[in-house]
């Protein structure tokens, strides 16, 4: 083997590895470093403050609310999206072309820019002239404030996230259902097993890798929610929809508290990191399994 043959693979992977190191790996460490300083971005000197930023953050009621908002948003979004899409998948898993059309329709928001979805839903949820208030009015309900009131703002964002995500999740579930061998169903029906028993004892266990996969990626996605908040609520009213990434964005780019924002970033890193490790393990298991 010539030297050229030995060096060739390194040359082939080098561009990608350089990009990843420069824009993904190094920034992680840079952020950890910055989180230990007090710095306003403009001043030439950074003041070392140790873990003071973390202490300040965790004792700040605003940040605690941000953490709780993010958690509530994530739990609701993930539970509703995963649960509803499992039901939809069981319903829509048919070969008939009509079901194909329905699958396409519920999937369509997934490929639309979050900007469009946020603007569209801001209009649908308008307290005065929104279509949603008119529709619920038809059923005799009074007008809701949706995004404009702290008691409904976060759940309104959850509704938008579920609307956007449910089609993708449903189709992943359908792919999962279709990978269950048909003879298993036949065996169950020959055994005269009740539908509910077939579902809990057969379908659910066979689908558990898919369920686990979707729960994890939905959680990772929800923890980083930004676009809908930036466009629809700007974290308000009264901080009721402020979440982690939006908080980091505001502290970094509006208030120029780089160290403080980086510390919040490190906290997000820890949360996403834990979820990611679980996902990583799952992913390698799946690859192994196939």
């Amino acid at each position, binding site marked *: 083997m010539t030297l050229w043959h030995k060096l060739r693979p390194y040359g082939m992977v080098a561009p990608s590895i350089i990009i990843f190191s420069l824009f993904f790996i190094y920034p992680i460490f*840079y*952020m950890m470093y910055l989180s230990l300083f007090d710095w306003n971005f403009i001043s030439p000197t950074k003041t070392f403050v140790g873990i003071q930023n973390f202490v300040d953050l965790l004792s700040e009621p605003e940040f605690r609310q941000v953490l709780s908002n993010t958690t509530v948003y994530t739990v609701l979004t993930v539970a509703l999206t995963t649960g509803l899409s499992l039901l939809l998948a069981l319903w829509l898993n048919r070969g008939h072309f009509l079901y194909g059309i329905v699958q396409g329709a*519920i999937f369509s928001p997934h490929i639309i820019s979050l900007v*469009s979805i946020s603007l569209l839903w801001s209009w649908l949820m308008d307290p005065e002239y929104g279509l949603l208030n008119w529709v619920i009015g038809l059923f005799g309900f009074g007008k809701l404030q949706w995004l404009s009131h702290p008691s409904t703002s976060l759940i309104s964002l959850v509704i938008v996230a579920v609307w956007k995500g449910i089609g993708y999740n449903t189709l992943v579930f359908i792919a999962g259902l279709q990978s269950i061998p048909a003879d298993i169903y036949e065996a169950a029906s020959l055994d005269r097993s009740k539908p509910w028993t077939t579902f809990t004892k057969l379908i659910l266990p066979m689908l558990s890798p898919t369920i686990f996969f979707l729960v994890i990626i939905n959680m990772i996605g929800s923890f980083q929610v930004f676009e809908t908040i930036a466009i629809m609520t700007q974290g308000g009213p009264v901080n009721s929809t402020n979440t982690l990434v939006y908080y980091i964005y505001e502290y970094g780019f509006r208030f120029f508290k780089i160290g403080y924002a980086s510390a919040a970033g490190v906290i997000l890193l820890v949360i996403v990191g834990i979820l990611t490790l679980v996902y990583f393990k799952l992913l390698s298991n799946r690859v192994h399994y196939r």
Partner: protein
Amino acid sequence: MKAANRAIEGPIRAAAGSPMNGVRTKRALLRIIMNVVLRLVNAAGLLLLVLIFALPFIWMLSTSLKTLPETMIFPPEWIPSHPVWKNYIDAWNTGPFLHYITNSVIISVSILLLQMLTIIPASYAFARYKFAGSGFLFSIVMVTLMIPSQLIFLPVYLELSAFKLLNTHLGLILPFASSAFGIFLLRQAFRQISDELIEAARLDQAKEWKIIARIMVPMVKPVLVTFALFSFIAHWNDYFWPLVMTTNETARTLPIGIAKIREVEGVGTWNILMAGNVILVAPILVVFFLSQRQIIKAFVYNGVK
């Protein structure tokens, strides 16, 4: 439970075998009626489901063709009797939209082309060559795959600012010039190609790059196409990264321009805002309806595997 029932309804119905005895008993009739009712409920449910997802888009189109007073009339007029096309001109005139669209095209296409140039050789090397440190280098890919851009935008902003790349096309392109996800997908595809094929080509004394370009790449073309669709749509739609990495109009893209209409036109001018929104959504929806299967495959099956 009902849904579960439906999913396995076929085999169960087959096993029950209804008209076998030939005699139309009361129970059989009842079963037929139940069946019809179930079908109707099912059809109504399907229709409702489609409406939940289609009506918002129809409403967007409808609003975009109304005058401002018309947007406040209820019950609403779904098809405006006098469509106001001027809303589209107004939306277009709120900012340099030709510039935004040009930027969007330049950035998404450059990212896609660069990704093709970087991920094909990298994934091929990871899939086909044994070399010292490949495990470590691949772990860099895997870690990158797990790092969302929302997590690292602050340090990357400082980095790009140090390189004087803020507000440049390059600053929005370079961080995505390779894709960990793409390498991951393509490596799997390259691994599945049989060794005999390559050995045969090597016996023909073909140069290695020729083997890659003429034999290997065509074999993974479906994966490349699905990845390309995925990448293009993701970057065309992206709002977060261009928003965070720009402070002026030089490199801003279409999603930012659309979101800015509200600042220019003021709150409540939903007709003009929705016209802008149609400009952003229509191309993607048209592409989606033309190649629905391919796109769904790109997003769903790549996610599963």
